[in-house]
């Protein structure tokens, strides 16, 4: 347990280390944190962020100001100079996603504030979902399911044929944790793996393409498995879609903004690509109406990470990072600038 939680000499109950919490948690996660830490819960407080930080800094001044924070990404809270000024006791920020683009890593490094992410707790689930989406699109699983449920099988006979997964050239954009797991899975189905990444990876034997256009030109399927940043915004655009061609499939388990959504929809409507499996969209939870009636797309509501196992793995992993920090050990999954 955290070393600063030792009972005092007078036998008073141990003082739990203070922790800032800027994330909504399920009950099990919240309880696990409260068992180990004195939690300052932003969303429960209802206060605006500056007031919340000031209150936490003041109230916790004795005996233990908050040295660690659990902060979600994707929201409006940014861990930047202003944030760090408001809570000067902070020495560790633990993000609950793989991406920490809500954290100014350089500013944290300057101040000696350690940063951790969620490591690979979600990676298998996202990879599984990507594979599930691809099989669904190629083999029409969801569409055929609708056909059966509407009672059309006895009436219309067999459902139209899909296309074989084996031998398909799959171009993965971003060969990080998730991209690598997708590659390993699809190889077992006989797919040929190509990839694009910022740099060629010496440790893999897949064919590398230095740009996404060329990757698309030689692929049957494009899988977006990269983070969202300036370089990857609309990485799948009109030019890439044209290179992919009319038999091409797009799978997106990255971020909606990795794809020029309007162009994708136009390409699907015009038959300039064959289909898509999407878990993310540019303006969630809004999904463009044109997609909702297409038979050659599979649409899921940003669920790639959300399994009960990943939720409990995330809880265990976050607590492990916090306990490592509070006992002076190295973080399990540190992120450097």
């Amino acid at each position, binding site marked *: 347990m955290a070393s600063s939680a030792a009972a005092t000499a007078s036998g008073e109950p141990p003082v739990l280390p203070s922790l800032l919490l800027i994330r909504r948690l399920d009950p099990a996660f919240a309880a696990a944190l409260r068992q180990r830490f004195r939690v300052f819960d932003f969303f429960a407080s209802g206060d605006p962020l500056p007031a919340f930080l000031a209150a936490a800094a003041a109230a916790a001044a004795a005996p233990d100001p908050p040295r660690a924070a659990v902060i979600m990404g994707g929201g409006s809270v940014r861990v930047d100079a202003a944030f760090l000024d408001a809570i000067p006791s902070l020495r560790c920020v633990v993000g609950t996603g793989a991406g920490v683009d809500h954290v100014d890593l350089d500013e944290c490094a300057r101040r000696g504030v350690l940063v951790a992410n969620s490591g690979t707790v979600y990676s298998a689930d996202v990879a599984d979902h990507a594979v599930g989406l691809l*099989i669904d699109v190629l083999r029409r699983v969801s569409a055929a399911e609708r056909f059966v449920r509407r009672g059309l099988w006895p009436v219309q006979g067999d459902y139209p*044929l*899909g296309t074989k997964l084996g031998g398909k050239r799959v171009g993965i954009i971003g060969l990080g944790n998730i991209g690598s797991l997708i590659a390993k899975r699809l190889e077992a189905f006989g797919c040929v793996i190509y990839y694009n990444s910022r740099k060629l990876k010496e440790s893999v034997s897949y064919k590398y393409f230095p740009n996404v256009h060329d990757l698309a030109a030689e692929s049957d399927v494009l899988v977006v498995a990269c983070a969202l940043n300036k370089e990857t915004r609309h990485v799948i655009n009109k030019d890439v879609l044209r290179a992919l061609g009319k038999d091409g499939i797009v799978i997106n388990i990255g971020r909606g903004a990795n794809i020029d959504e309007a162009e994708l929809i136009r390409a699907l409507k015009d038959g300039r690509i064959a289909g898509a499996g999407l878990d993310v969209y540019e303006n969630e939870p809004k999904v463009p109406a044109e997609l909702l009636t297409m038979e050659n797309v599979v649409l899921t*509501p940003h669920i790639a990470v959300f399994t009960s196992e990943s939720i409990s793995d995330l809880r265990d992993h976050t607590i492990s990072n916090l306990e490592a920090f509070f006992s002076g050990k190295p973080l399990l999954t540190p992120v450097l600038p």
Partner: protein
Amino acid sequence: MESLGVLLLHPMDAYLEQELARRCRLLRFCWDAPPDRRDAFLRAHAGSVRAVVTGGVAGAGAALIDALPRLEIVACFSVGFDRVDLARCRERGVRVTNTPGVLTDDVADLAVGLAIAVLRRIPQADGYVRAGQWKAKGDFTLTTRFSGKRVGIIGLGRIGLAIARRVEAFGCPVSYYQRTKRDYPNYTFFPTVVELAATSDVLVVACSLNEQSRRIVSREVIDALGPGGVLVNIGRGGHVDEPELVAALAEGRLGGAGLDVFEDEPEVPEALVALDNVVLAPHMGSGTRETRRAMADVVLGNLEAHVSGKPLLTPVV
């Protein structure tokens, strides 16, 4: 084989039909006609039919075989031949062929696709989005991880092995049941299906249908698989006690099912359609353009071999 009179029992594939018409003397059976018209048709053409091309569900029963005195070969456009009366064929000296191998990958792909679809609720999630629920009601439910789940395979033949290789890439430990234990260093053998089910999270039916395997997924097996378990059937509807399966799913005694086959296709029990812990597919395990083309070529190849007195490509009898 221009003089070979071939009876195509029902429409099954445009390319196959076109090639049969081009290369043989093709007769199309009046599949949908009432029984007396069908019998009349068979009587009228009995003299010229030397080959029957049929599908897995239609098969070729004793009555049909008996109605065709010049029948020499039944070529199945399927790997399953449980509905072909093999005994009658043997008695009559009629050869039987099927289409193994060419469809192995597609069926294995669908088996894994169904398992992921059930555990991750992909069709339900897709329906949620299409119905506007994401905007209206918010986030979808949590689902269950597929990677690392214990996969039990009934029948480690071509298709079973192909499934095993795929799920291994997801870190799934593989166990199996079949009549004879083999030496697979990475796969655990269980001597009964109940024991296999008791130690599996996903149970896959991948064996052929015969007297021993009929209703091999019994109530006992379903109970052993349990409320956390998922059944995937890419074999035959006849492998499963369907009423028991439906009751178990409805009552939550079985966690979920991915089904490509049913006892009475194309009829699917209403009670299954009403459930949302199942994924239902219209017998499309081999349903890709590439594989159906390859299957058709096997059928045609078998007929050619028969006519030219060469060894059949894929004989069953």
